[in-house]
């Protein structure tokens, strides 16, 4: 475990940033609360809490003999948000994953954010968040109700499901609309611990492995003229320790174009992951997806092409393997807040060569 050479200044800086965020949040919020006693006539003095839960039940079958067709429980995502006052809010997402066989439940705190909202141009958050790498990761979280196909694109798979990205991070983030653009141009800037790529004991869980902080910046354009259209790009960088060797420089560039309306969804995203260790070659990996769907009333057919190219020599993610998948499916929304998806998947994978699978998923939110 590599320790920071001079932890105090960096820690002091992080502490200062956090203190500034809290200091920014409290006085104006308190003032706003005092000044706005008439602003929310129907609001009780206690914070108003909104709770939602997302769940799913799955069935899957493949042509692999060693994998029998099976029912399964998906993630149960408990989502809570509350406005503490006009400027400050909290958000938490707790995910429970159960085994249908013995109802054993594993619980993960996936998101926990305290947000200070100055105005539409500046939102400051502290806590655990989904990184703003590309589009998909910040748009779709653990509740799978909003996703049209079953499952996330391979490039955006969660860390504990063989994902290659730092999907979650703990740190600070700022986002909002760029002034003077009529909210058409939006930005995100994040500073976090970065992803842990090596196993750690419980005592170290949650702390950074080194003093270097990950940073991510992104810009997105949503022209008012083309409602539902968004194009954007982001750039992430971090330094990842590798035992006693010099740290690896890790960079992720992402670009996307999305068109999402209630009836039509066209999404394309491409990411380039670079790893560089001093005195070693630079490893470049790529991944992305294209997906489209169109709703005809309550029925929505969809297609996704999903691709991930990983160089096996790449540190940390070399063993994760490359894959290509075609997903063809249909989603039916028989009632509000209930969705039924059925999907055929043809997968070319480094590990299993080629396979066909059928997935059915029932998703709901309440």
């Amino acid at each position, binding site marked *: 475990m590599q320790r920071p050479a001079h932890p105090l200044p960096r820690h002091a800086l992080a502490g200062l940033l956090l203190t500034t965020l809290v200091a920014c949040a409290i006085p104006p919020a308190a003032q706003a609360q005092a000044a*706005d006693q*008439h*602003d*929310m*006539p*129907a609001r009780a003095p206690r914070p*108003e809490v*909104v709770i*939602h839960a997302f769940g799913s039940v799955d069935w899957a079958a493949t042509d692999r003999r060693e994998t029998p067709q099976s029912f399964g429980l998906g993630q149960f995502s408990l*989502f809570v*948000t*509350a*406005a503490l006052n*006009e*400027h400050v*809010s909290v*958000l938490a997402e707790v995910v429970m994953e159960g085994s249908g066989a013995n109802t054993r439940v594993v619980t993960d705190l996936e*998101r926990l*954010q305290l*947000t200070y*909202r100055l*105005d*539409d141009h500046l939102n400051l*958050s502290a806590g655990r*968040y989904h990184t703003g790498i590309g589009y998909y990761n*910040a*748009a779709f*979280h653990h*509740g799978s109700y*909003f996703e049209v196909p079953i499952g996330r694109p391979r490039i955006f798979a969660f860390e504990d499901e063989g994902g290659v990205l730092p999907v979650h991070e703990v740190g600070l983030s700022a986002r909002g609309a760029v002034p003077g653009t*009529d*909210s058409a141009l939006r930005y995100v800037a994040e500073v976090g611990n970065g992803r842990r790529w090596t196993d750690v004991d419980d005592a170290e869980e949650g702390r950074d492995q080194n003093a270097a902080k990950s940073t991510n910046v992104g810009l997105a354009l949503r022209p*008012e003229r083309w409602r539902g259209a968004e194009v954007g790009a982001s750039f992430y960088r971090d330094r990842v320790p590798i035992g006693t060797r010099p740290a690896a420089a890790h960079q992720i560039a992402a670009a996307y174009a999305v068109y999402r309306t*209630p009836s039509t969804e066209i999404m394309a995203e491409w990411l380039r992951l670079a790893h560089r260790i001093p005195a070693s070659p630079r490893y470049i990996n790529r991944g992305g997806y294209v997906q489209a769907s169109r709703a*005809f*009333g*309550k*029925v929505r057919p969809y297609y996704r092409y999903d691709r991930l190219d990983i160089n096996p020599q790449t540190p940390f993610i070399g063993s994760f393997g490359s894959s290509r998948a075609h997903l063809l499916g249909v989603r039916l929304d028989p009632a*509000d807040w209930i969705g039924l998806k059925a999907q055929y998947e043809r997968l070319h994978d480094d590990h299993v060569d080629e396979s066909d699978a059928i997935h059915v998923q029932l998703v709901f*939110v309440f």
Partner: protein
Amino acid sequence: MGTPRLVFIGLLLSAATLAGTVPVVAQQAPIGPALAIIVHRSNPVDNLTSGELRRIFMLDMQTWPHGRKITVVLRDRGQPERADAIRLLCRLSESEYEKHILFQTFQGSVNIGPRAIQSVSGMLNFVFSAPGAIGYVNAGEVTPAVKLLRIDGMLPDDPRYPLRRRARGRGADER
């Protein structure tokens, strides 16, 4: 021989209806009253563009230019005034709007969704009491207790005013 065909045609029609390809309402609804957009009397904003109004009701824009948080007020779920307003302001069905708000909430962009108000008098009282509120009533229901906004520079008595409900009654679209 006839029964399977009838069943097949029935299935086709059911699927087409489910998919929304069979038109249910073909009649053109007559024009109804204008939707007046109202805010608190202290609000310095006099005019909004249609785009700004849409962004406000979609909760993409959540603060007024003078910094106060915007509180969007709609009529209660299930009331025709709510569905009409959502269709006019956001060009969405009520169900699509609810999903949009939940999606925004899940993303962390929204904490508390729009307020829901039971009646016209409740709407007027809320907007009168809340400095950041924005709501709507029929043009004839506006009182001096609230401020009427221009939309794209026009008031509801202007024939070019963009927010007009469909008249209710026989043949009107009640979706």
